[in-house]
C-alpha cells in the first residue's frame, strides 16, 4: 500500500465495487447466512450433509413461494396477513371438490386458484378503492378465509392420498435424485419462480411501477402509473402464490388440514424484511428474500441439530429480526447522511 502514492486512485473500481456491494441490502443477510452455515457446521458436521440440506430445502420452498409474492407486495407499500389462511383454504377447496367426485384434480386445482385470485382481488379493491390500510383489510380477510376453511370441512382434514397417480401431483411435488441429493419438484418451481420474480421486479416496466408505487405514490400517479391496478394485481399474485404453496404442501404431507398455515403470514413477512425489503415500500429485493427464507429455515433446522431446545427457536428468530432491522437502519442512515 505504501509504495502506491494514492491507493484510492490506483484502485477506484475495486473499492467502489466493494463499497457498492457492502451498501447493497442483500449484504447483511448474506453475511448472516454464511456465519450461520459455518457455526452450525462447526458444532455439528451433519448439518451440511446432503440429506439434511435436501430435507431443509423441501420445507423451505413452501413458505418461500409466498415470500416471493410478498416481496413485490411490500415493495409496492402494502402487505398481506391473509396468506396463511389462503395457504390452508385453497387445498381444502381443491380436495373437497376432488374427493366428492365433482371435478378431476386439474380442474379442482384451477377452481382453487381462481378462488384464491378472487380473495386477492377483494383485498386489493378494499385497500385501493376504499382506502383502508392493508393491515386491517387483510386481517379481516385472514379471519374470513380461515373461518371458511373450518366451516367447509367441519374442522376435519381432507384426505389427499389419492394423489399418488395424478400427473399434477407429480408435476408439483414429484421427486428425483441428483447424485445423492433428493430433489423435489417444488424446489425447481421455487428456483424458476424466484428467477422470474427477480427479473419481473428489476428488469420490467411492471417492476419499475411496483417500486415507484411504493416509493412515492404521488409521483407515480402523476406520471400516469396505474398504482391502484398495480396493487390489486400484487394482492392477487400473493393470494395465488399462497394457494399454490398450500396445495404443494397438502400433497407432500398427504393431508389438507383447514388449520394449516396458521401464523405463516408473520413468518413470511419476517423472511422478507430480514432479506432487506423495506416494510414501508419502495425498495425490495428478491435475492434478499431468498436469503431471508434460507436464514429462517436453516436456523430452525440448525438450532435443533446443535442441541438447542426447539422451543427456543422463536427467541433466535426474534433476535435476528431485531438485529437485521438495526443493521438496515444503520446502513440507511449512513446512506442518507451524504444528502
Amino acid at each position: 500500500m505504501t509504495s502506491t502514492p494514492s491507493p484510492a486512485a490506483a484502485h477506484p473500481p475495486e473499492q467502489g465495487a466493494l463499497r457498492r456491494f457492502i451498501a447493497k441490502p442483500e449484504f447483511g443477510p448474506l453475511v448472516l447466512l454464511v456465519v450461520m452455515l459455518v457455526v452450525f457446521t462447526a458444532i455439528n458436521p451433519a448439518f451440511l450433509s446432503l440429506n439434511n440440506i435436501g430435507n431443509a430445502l423441501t420445507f423451505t420452498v413452501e413458505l418461500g413461494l409466498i415470500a416471493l409474492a410478498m416481496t413485490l407486495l411490500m415493495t409496492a407499500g402494502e402487505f398481506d396477513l391473509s396468506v396463511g389462511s389462503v395457504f390452508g383454504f385453497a387445498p381444502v377447496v381443491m380436495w373437497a371438490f376432488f374427493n366428492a367426485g365433482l371435478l378431476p384434480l386439474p380442474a379442482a386445482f384451477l377452481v382453487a386458484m381462481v378462488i384464491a385470485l378472487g380473495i386477492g382481488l377483494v383485498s386489493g379493491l378494499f385497500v385501493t378503492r376504499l382506502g383502508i390500510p392493508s393491515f386491517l383489510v387483510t386481517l379481516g380477510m385472514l379471519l374470513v378465509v380461515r373461518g371458511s376453511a373450518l366451516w367447509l370441512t367441519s374442522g376435519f382434514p381432507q384426505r389427499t392420498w389419492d394423489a399418488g397417480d395424478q400427473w399434477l401431483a407429480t408435476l408439483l411435488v414429484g421427486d428425483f435424485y441428483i447424485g445423492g441429493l433428493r430433489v423435489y419438484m417444488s424446489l425447481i418451481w421455487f428456483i424458476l419462480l424466484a428467477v422470474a420474480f427477480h427479473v419481473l421486479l428489476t428488469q420490467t416496466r411492471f417492476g419499475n411501477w411496483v417500486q415507484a408505487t411504493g416509493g412515492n405514490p404521488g409521483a407515480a400517479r402523476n406520471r400516469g402509473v396505474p398504482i391502484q391496478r398495480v396493487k390489486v394485481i400484487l394482492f392477487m399474485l400473493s393470494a395465488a402464490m399462497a394457494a399454490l404453496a398450500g396445495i404443494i404442501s397438502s400433497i407432500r404431507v398427504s393431508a389438507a388440514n383447514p388449520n394449516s398455515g396458521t401464523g405463516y403470514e408473520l413468518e413470511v413477512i419476517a423472511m422478507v424484511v430480514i432479506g432487506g425489503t423495506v416494510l414501508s415500500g419502495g425498495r425490495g429485493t428478491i435475492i434478499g428474500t431468498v436469503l431471508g427464507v434460507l436464514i429462517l429455515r436453516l436456523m430452525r433446522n440448525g438450532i435443533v441439530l446443535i442441541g438447542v431446545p426447539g422451543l427456543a427457536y422463536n427467541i433466535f428468530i426474534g433476535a435476528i429480526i431485531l438485529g437485521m432491522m438495526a443493521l438496515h437502519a444503520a446502513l440507511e442512515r449512513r446512506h442518507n447522511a451524504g444528502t
Partner: protein
Amino acid sequence: MTDTPLVEMRHIQKSYGRVHALRDVNLTIRRGEIVGLLGDNGAGKSTLIKVLSGAVPYTSGEIRIKGQPVTMTSTNDAISAGIETIYQDSALVPQLSIARNLFLGRELTKGSLGRLDLDRMNQVAADLLKRVGISKNIPPTTPIGSLSGGERQAVAIARAMYFDSDLIILDEPTNNLGVAETQGVLRFVREARDTGHSCIFIAHNIHHVFQVVDRMVVMRRGTVVADDLSPKTSSIQDVEDVITGDHILV
C-alpha cells in the same frame, strides 16, 4: 398559427361543496413565455394548476390547447396534451435511479414481454444530463434519493423538456433550495423557454419570480385580479400590493 395561444382557460369555475375555489377564471398562456402565477395562500393557485394538470375536475368552463377544446379528466389527459406538472415533493421516486425516474410511466422496452431497455434508458439519461448542464458527473444509475434538492428539480425539468412538453408547470420549484441551486433552477427555466417550451412558475418568493418571468398573473380569492404585470414595468412593491389587495385601498 403563432397567434393561437398555447393554452386558453375560459370561465373556469370550481366548487368544493359550498366553497367556491375558482370563480370565472380566464388564463391564457402563449408559446415560449414564462408566466409567474402569484397569490397568497388560499388564493386558488394550486386549484387552478390542478385543474390544468387534470388532477381535479373543474365544475364548468372550457380549456383549449392550441385552439382545440380538450377535456381533462385525468393526469394522463394533460400529459398527452403536452402539459407537464412538476410538483415539489411528488415529482420523483427517491428509491429509483435517475434513468428510471426519467422514463417512469413511459419506459423504453424491448421485446414483447415489457422488459426494460436499461442500456438505452441509461444512455439517453446520461446524454440528457450532459445536455442540460448538470455540471457534476453523475451516473444515470444514481438513485434520486442521493441527489440534492436542486439536482432533483433539474432532473424533473429535464424530463419535461425531453418529452417535449409544450407547457411545464413548476410548483414552488425554488422552495428549500440554496442560493446557487436556486440560480441553477432559474437558469433551467430560461433554457426551457429558449428551446420553445412555455412555463408556469409558481413561487412564494417574488424575487425569484422577478428574475425569470415574462409576465405575472396574480390571483386573489379565487379570481384572477391581474394578468399583465411585467417585471420590466412593475416593481416588487407594486406586485405585492396587488397580491394583498392593498392597491385598491390606495
